């Protein structure tokens, strides 16, 4: 019987023939923790009588969520992480290095067929590299650090076949928002997803990461793609690891196959306060905004900054709008400086903050006030997400955020694209 991508990866890492609903204990290739989850994982590691991590070369800790530290409580937890990393010989990405989900792929430690666990729900991002990567909690992370293994229930897979080509002004963010709206926030709970079809294969790696990143917003355990020339070119730059791409068998069994034609897709918006509250932008055009956010693990990559800059070139952010930009990594920050992208954004009125999670998680870097509307390229718009439960968060693509920042209200980016 044929296997899905995740069944193949879990088979290889468990030494069994893994099929949906089996329980397997699998070898893990890489483990990541961030500053919201690692401190508890360190406590759990101690409670397990952990002495050394299973392989320091296969572990990274990242300080990105509250980075640099906004208060003494956070500072104490960052210190705990630095001391743990130093004593165990583990690499720690300190303030300014970037968001975990950008620095881990840039490190070259993830390649097709890899199995990665991360104590962050958006770890599913690396599925775009044909890897099974998934979010776990702190205690599971500690179990991985001690043993180099993790137990999994082999998930069923939903396959999304996306035909056609995204029209002008419509990006991979719009596509994934549309799909989440279609299947809802728990449409893929306990399941893996595979994204395939012409609309996916013609996307850049940056654009693909956006889609896999948000698989968790439909409840999925993984957001997988097949590897192709685009993947290989990207890996040539960042990784020297040998790998074997993993393709689904033609006779693999899927829980469901959903087909879409994206040729007529409009820009999409997720309205407050759930990510699946999605509508075409035309339904919310004109909604006033107070803050615009460009960045995060969803849309803080070079292509995203460039797309926003292409609209903001020779224009100004509306005087009533704060425009916060957080590049996803130091490398992206430098490249956006070198090619003039950052200059364009700053001249337009952007406040550029430290590479990292920026204002997405509500600890610093732009907490909105009561009753204010925010338009953001992030992946979550839950009430209180950005630090104020009386604010309203709308999610859209980088160009939608840029266009809205100019006008001060939610604006169809196609108005600015010739």
């Amino acid at each position: 019987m044929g296997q899905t991508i995740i069944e193949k990866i879990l088979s290889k890492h468990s030494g069994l023939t893994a099929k949906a609903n089996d329980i397997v204990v699998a070898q893990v290739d890489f483990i990541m923790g961030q500053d919201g989850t690692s401190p508890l994982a360190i406590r759990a590691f101690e409670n397990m009588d952990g002495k050394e991590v299973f392989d320091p070369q296969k572990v990274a800790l990242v300080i990105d969520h509250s980075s640099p530290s906004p208060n003494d409580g956070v500072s104490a937890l960052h210190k705990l992480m630095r001391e743990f990393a130093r004593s165990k010989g583990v690499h720690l990405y300190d303030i300014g290095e970037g968001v975990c989900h950008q620095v881990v792929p840039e490190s070259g430690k993830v390649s097709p067929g890899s199995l990665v666990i991360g104590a962050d729900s958006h770890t599913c991002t690396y599925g775009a590299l044909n890897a099974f990567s998934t979010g776990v909690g702190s205690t599971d992370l500690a179990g991985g650090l001690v043993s180099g293994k993790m137990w999994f229930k082999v998930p069923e897979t939903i396959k999304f076949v996306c035909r056609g080509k995204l029209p002008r002004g419509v990006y991979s963010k719009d596509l994934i928002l549309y799909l989440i709206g279609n299947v809802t926030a728990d449409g893929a709970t306990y399941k893996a997803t595979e994204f395939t079809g012409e609309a996916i294969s013609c996307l850049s790696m940056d654009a693909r990461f956006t889609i896999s990143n948000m698989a968790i917003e439909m409840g999925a355990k993984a957001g997988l793609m097949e590897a192709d020339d685009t993947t290989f070119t990207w890996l040539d730059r960042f990784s020297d690891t040998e790998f074997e791409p993993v393709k689904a068998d033609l006779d693999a069994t899927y829980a469901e196959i959903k087909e879409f034609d994206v040729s007529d897709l409009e820009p999409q918006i997720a309205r407050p306060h759930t990510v699946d509250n999605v509508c075409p932008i035309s339904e919310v055009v004109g909604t006033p905004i107070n803050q615009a956010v460009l960045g995060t693990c969803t849309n803080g990559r070079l292509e995203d900054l460039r797309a926003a800059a292409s609209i903001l070139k020779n224009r100004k952010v509306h005087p009533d709008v704060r425009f916060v930009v957080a590049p996803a990594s130091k490398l992206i920050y430098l490249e956006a400086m070198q090619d003039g992208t950052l200059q364009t954004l700053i001249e337009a009125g952007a406040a550029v903050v430290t590479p990292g999670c920026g204002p997405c998680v509500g600890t610093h870097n732009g907490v909105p006030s009561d009753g204010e509307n925010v338009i953001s390229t992030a992946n979550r718009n839950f009430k209180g997400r950005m630090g104020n439960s009386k604010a309203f968060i709308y999610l859209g693509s980088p160009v939608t955020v840029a266009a809205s920042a100019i006008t001060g209200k939610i604006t169809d980016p196609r108005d600015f694209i010739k």
Partner: protein
Amino acid sequence: MKFEGNTHKFGNDVNTDYIIAGRYKFKTLDMKELAKHVMEDLDPDFYHKINAGDFIVGGSNFGCGSSREQAPLAIKHADISAVLAKSFARIFYRNAINTGLPVVECDTDLIDAGDELEVDLAGGNVINKTKGQTIPAKPLPPVMIKILNDGGLAPHFKKYGGFNL
């Protein structure tokens, strides 16, 4: 394990940001302190409404969103004895078992706010004493029962030195 208490009812898609907001969870490992803010963005007085042993009852997809283990821990340290929901988000479900917070999947449409419940984890049943009704619960997978019986994943590792599932 058998628990008795009253119901605090919530809707569908209760995410981990609602259970414990990022503005609190990033700055402390003191779970008693975090417990004071549990569900605050849905009900600012929630912590003060809890009597030890009460239940949180949600709809579908309880615990969706981030991987923060502070979510089940804050619930546990607020003296909630178990969470009942029609379905749970995957990471929250694992985190709850790993940290020893009982989670029960059952038809929570049959439970209203204030109902008095009896939950028998071993027997797999929920008794709604207010309505005089027995609600069947979905049994935990054997792997999770093993971890829960060991007191969570950390005690399991302490006992066996690794996974012994």
